[in-house]
């Protein structure tokens, strides 16, 4: 189930079995195949083109933008945007490091929180199992809503303007726990846990040294869910980080705020130097978009099989 599509090589290996011959006979007509292919090529292009477009814009010179606008074929290429990002590297690097740090810390914490409860729920003899199933199920049905959550997080937990506000609220989700519980129940043999118990290992040790090492695929799946969620998050920063704490901004939120930021930078640059008028603001924001998108676009094709397996387990009833 890991790969949604059968491996083409395997298909070739069994090329002459009866069933394959049947499937060959049972194919759609070449015309339909052509039409379907065309539809998918169009859709695939539609999904990739904006990324390419933004990369091209970020590599256009500011002069080209002001005469020709955003275009797939700029009048003139240029690295103005990246040069400018380099000039304000203290701000940009700060937010890149924030994003990376938050992503790593959040993923670690999230994995600890989800795997432990996932394991506990997979133990059928745990006396509070039914209680815990409801305990994680109720928040899936009902939540406090934005206002109540915000008031609790700021006025009770004191998370306003801290890194914790960007990490803690996203760390755990009932969906992840259910995926892990399903994985532990279906793929970790009871014999392994029993053997650990017979050898006198504590539950913590069984969990850390026996269960986790053989559950790496599931851990990778949840880890990826968490990584992408943290890397893409801007909403928490918008809620909990005020303008007085710019140092805490993750990269995504810099992008949200960029209009305000560019105005701020322009004003400051004006004080410092005379060339503030040539500030490549149009291309610069696209350059930041590129910095955010590139790690995702380059890595997800290799990771998507873990995503798919997670989605498949997650949508199984259980």
């Amino acid at each position: 189930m890991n790969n949604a599509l059968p491996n083409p090589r395997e298909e070739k290996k069994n090329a002459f079995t009866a069933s394959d011959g049947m499937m060959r006979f049972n194919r759609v007509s070449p015309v339909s195949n052509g039409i379907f292919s065309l539809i998918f090529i169009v859709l695939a292009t539609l999904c990739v083109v904006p990324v390419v477009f933004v990369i091209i814009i970020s590599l256009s010179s500011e002069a080209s933008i002001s005469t020709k606008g955003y275009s797939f074929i700029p009048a003139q290429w240029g690295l103005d945007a990246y040069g400018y990002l380099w000039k304000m590297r203290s701000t940009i690097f700060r937010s890149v490091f924030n994003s990376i740090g938050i992503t790593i810390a959040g993923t670690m914490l999230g994995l600890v929180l989800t795997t432990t409860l996932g394991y506990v729920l997979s133990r059928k003899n745990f006396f509070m199992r039914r209680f815990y199933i409801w305990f994680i199920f109720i928040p899936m049905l009902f939540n406090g809503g934005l206002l109540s959550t915000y008031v609790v997080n700021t006025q009770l937990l004191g998370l306003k303007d801290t890194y914790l506000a960007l990490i803690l609220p996203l760390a755990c989700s009932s969906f992840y726990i259910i995926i892990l519980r399903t994985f532990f129940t279906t793929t970790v043999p009871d014999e392994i846990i029993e053997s650990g118990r017979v050898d006198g290992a504590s539950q913590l040790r069984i969990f850390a040294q026996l269960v986790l090492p053989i559950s790496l695929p599931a851990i990778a799946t949840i880890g990826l869910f968490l990584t992408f969620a943290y890397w893409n998050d801007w909403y928490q920063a918008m809620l909990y980080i005020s303008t007085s704490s710019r140092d805490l901004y993750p990269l995504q939120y810099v992008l949200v705020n960029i209009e305000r930021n560019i105005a701020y930078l322009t004003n400051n640059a004006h004080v410092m130097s005379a060339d503030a008028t040539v500030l490549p603001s149009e291309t610069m924001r696209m350059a930041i978009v590129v910095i955010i998108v590139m790690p995702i676009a380059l890595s997800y094709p290799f990771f998507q099989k873990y995503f798919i397996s997670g989605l498949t387990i997650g949508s199984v009833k259980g």
Partner: protein
Amino acid sequence: MEVRKGFIKNGSVAVKKKKRKQKGAWIDQLQLLLLAAPTTIWYLLFCYLPIFGIIIAFKNYRVAAGKGFIWSLLNNSPWVGLDNFRFLFSNNAQKTLQMFRNTVGYNLVFIVLGVAIPVTLAIMISQLYSRRMAKVCQTAIFLPYFLSWVVVGYFVYAFLATKEGLVNNLLLSFGNSPVKWYQGEAIGYWPYFLVFLQLWKTMGYGMVVYMAAISGIDGTLYEASVIDGASKWQQVKHITLPLLRPIMSIMFIMAVGRIFSSDFGLFYRTTRNSNSLTSIYTTIDVYVYNSMFNTSRPVYGYTSASGFLQSALGCIMLIIANSAIRRFDPENSMF
């Protein structure tokens, strides 16, 4: 259960195990409880405290200076019964109606298209001759799912910006006058844009879920139907779709449970929260956000009331959808 299995296989081992188990049972349970503790604390702080905090909706919440949230809530905020809700539906009726209409309206479209399109595409892609091409296209279509709405908002801006945007430049080069896309004059297009963007971003996800289900279908079913002379269309209608029904039911129930929620980023970021488009993108979430942050001071009363309605109605809808499915199709309900 494990012990009982062992019992049938080998009596003496099971007896030994049982003794061990009784001796170490409570310590075992305690260790499991300990393992569950960090997550329990997380849930109490980040899920159950806000659920408890929902009583703000029935109070006139006032922050007491220097005192915490719970003290303020319990001692400094008088009960006002349903006053907050009354305000929502009398003084504020027009806006309330608008946000509910937007939220539910968009979600209805998303539910219908969000099931129909991915299922169709998943069936189509499973029919492609070239596996390699199927894989490449599926990977490309999955890409937008991994991007944030902020980034998507900038993609949209690259096309729709008034001065530099690609669309306006094309319009100009064909001799048409440019359109101010983020202004009131383009308001009629935005519902279509929003639906398109939502589908564009989530299509790949739905497709992958249904493709996985299709690849799990037993191939002999199709072979048997071919021998009986079934056409491709009949195969889809009588084999593929019925076998996709369990997963479609689950996706449907979950979507109905979210019918009063909206993806804040879609509505708030892709429209660049333009003032002249508010009637198009103000969903409950956007409304709550605006009345908390885009005002001089947060309005607790009717904001929390709309948040409460959103949660409560969503929960009710989920239960209704689930019991409807359970009634007609008992095996495929979620709980």
